[in-house]
């Protein structure tokens, strides 16, 4: 039974029934610019949350701060009950929060399957001394490889198994990055613009895979600036503009939200200009 969020109040910072991530009073400044200015935000467990906003809204910075790649100037984040403000990204990944990147980071000179195997946690052979003795890590390596192969098959990437990751297309790299992140057994997957630069055919299959994560019980947060993508897939949408959360709600409600439209198109997009006020006014009526 999926969590029903439809009864929640549609105001920024609204409390969720079972939040996996809670952000409080977070500020991140770059010189004089406040890139992130979030008073309170809760991310519900087990659903797909979209983080949208126009270009320059601070989505990626917010994402970097949440995932430990950037440090906030103030504020706190609680992940699964633990404060994670100063926790390094690799430690976060071990605790179950894994992320992907807007500019895909395939490990180009490693084979696709090696990319996958890298993601697995608690590998005995990653310790220097144990690495010296193959019997210490071989059995585990085999089971990791089986998991990697299974995931590759699920993402229909198994035919590329032994190719260099650098030889994959942009869309395939997105798939690889997503499947690789699953090797870490995450509880929360953070996807930074998973659809960016992907052709329409692959976009659909990527969306299906994101839905698949949810079906497995994984919580998903993804950044997107295209509102149409968000409609079909997300359970809850959080809208950022100028660093702050300006709206929250189920996807249907967001498209009609006045503040959101203003943020995307500019606050005065429907104010008539003096010279051709009549014409603009007519357009305004049509939109209503």
């Amino acid at each position: 039974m999926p969590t029903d969020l439809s009864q929640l109040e549609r105001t920024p910072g609204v409390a969720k029934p079972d939040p996996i991530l809670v952000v409080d009073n977070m500020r991140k400044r770059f010189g004089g610019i406040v890139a992130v200015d979030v008073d309170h935000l809760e991310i519900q467990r087990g659903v797909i949350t979209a983080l949208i906003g126009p270009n320059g809204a601070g989505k990626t910075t917010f994402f970097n701060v949440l995932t430990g790649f950037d440090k906030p100037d103030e504020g706190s984040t609680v992940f699964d009950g633990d404060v994670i403000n100063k926790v390094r990204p690799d430690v976060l990944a071990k605790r179950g929060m894994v992320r992907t990147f807007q500019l895909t980071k395939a490990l180009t000179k490693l084979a696709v399957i090696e990319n996958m195997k890298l993601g697995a946690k608690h590998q005995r052979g990653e310790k220097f001394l144990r690495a010296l003795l193959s019997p210490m890590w071989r059995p585990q390596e085999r089971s990791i490889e089986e998991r990697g192969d299974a995931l590759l098959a699920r993402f229909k990437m198994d035919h590329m198994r032994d190719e260099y990751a650098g030889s994959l297309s942009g869309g395939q790299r997105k798939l690889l990055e997503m499947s690789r992140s699953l090797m870490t057994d995450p509880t929360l997957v953070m996807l930074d613009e998973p659809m960016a630069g992907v052709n329409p055919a692959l976009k659909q299959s990527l969306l299906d895979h994101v839905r698949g994560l949810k079906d497995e019980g994984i919580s998903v947060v993804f950044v997107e600036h295209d509102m149409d993508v968000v409609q079909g897939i997300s359970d809850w949408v959080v809208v950022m503009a100028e660093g702050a959360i300006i709206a929250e709600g189920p996807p249907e409600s967001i498209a009609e939200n006045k503040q959101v439209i203003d943020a995307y198109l500019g606050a005065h997009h429907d104010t008539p200009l003096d010279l051709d006020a009549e014409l603009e006014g007519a357009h305004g009526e049509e939109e209503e």
Partner: protein
Amino acid sequence: MDGFFVFAIDWGFIFDQSVKQAVDINAIVYALAAIGLNVHFGYAGLLNFGQVGFVAMGAYGMGLGITYWQTNPAIAVLIGIIFSVVFALILGLPTLRLRADYLAIVTIAAAEIVRLMARSTALRDITQGAEGLNEFIGPFRDLNPFSPGAEYGFGPFVWSGNRFYTIVIGWTLIALFLLLVWQLMRSPWGRVVKAIREDEDAARALGKSAYWYKLQALILGGVIGGFGGMVMALGNATVQPDFFVAPLTFFFWLVLILGGVGRVWSPVVGAIIFWALITFIQNLGRQLVADGLIPTSIMDTTQVDQIRFWIVGAALALLMVFRPQGIFGSREEMALDAH
């Protein structure tokens, strides 16, 4: 004229010398230093422009151990290792959290600092300045199973007992370290290190502490370089600061690139080819000058020693044009970097 040419040049001698130098102590030192660099750059992507500093640390650690603590050779070697590890920590702890270029800048300076400190008057009581350490070889020679008076080898390739002893130790070390690197780089540990070379943030996002693995790789490659310094000290029976000049680092890089970056064998093959080539050109040049085939108005015998580096440089430039991946490197992998 042709007949004269063939007669005047002693090709056999040149060939013998070239082969001999290809396996002699210099080649061993270069090979070990380049194996270390290969761990740094070829696998972990660390730009270390101060490998000679690690070589110096190994040599001085071992030399000082015997000179001042009168300790046994095994402990002296351990001190050489500790010196290399400490040097790696000094370089790595502050810089490995930063972008890759910071390490490069720090290493090139640190290696010079090591040399200048070793020859400084302030530390004269310890390092004995420019004269260096000359009193440490005894305990090692005592362990020499070969007779110092006799000659060892076969055919034209013979060495004195003491030199042969060092060569055997050197090649044994090379074999051990190649085995070590090979095993590590096929293990999950090597996978993490290579992933960090490819993209540090991706590795971190997958739960790997890039900093810790880079530090481990820096230490490992540094210690291997340190063993190069110990072999150098054994072979020369002296440790002098001006052995460890900055250009040596770039010869180690040359050797690595010649063989092919990121391949287990390549540093050794690179070192062999480098020394064979240098010796070949040197001996050929000397004979050509001595026989008057190159008039002294163009070049004299001492100038041959400098010209050989020109020719090696030109040869390397050609290699970069026609085979940029080196002898063992993979062109396919190289092409991936273009993306």
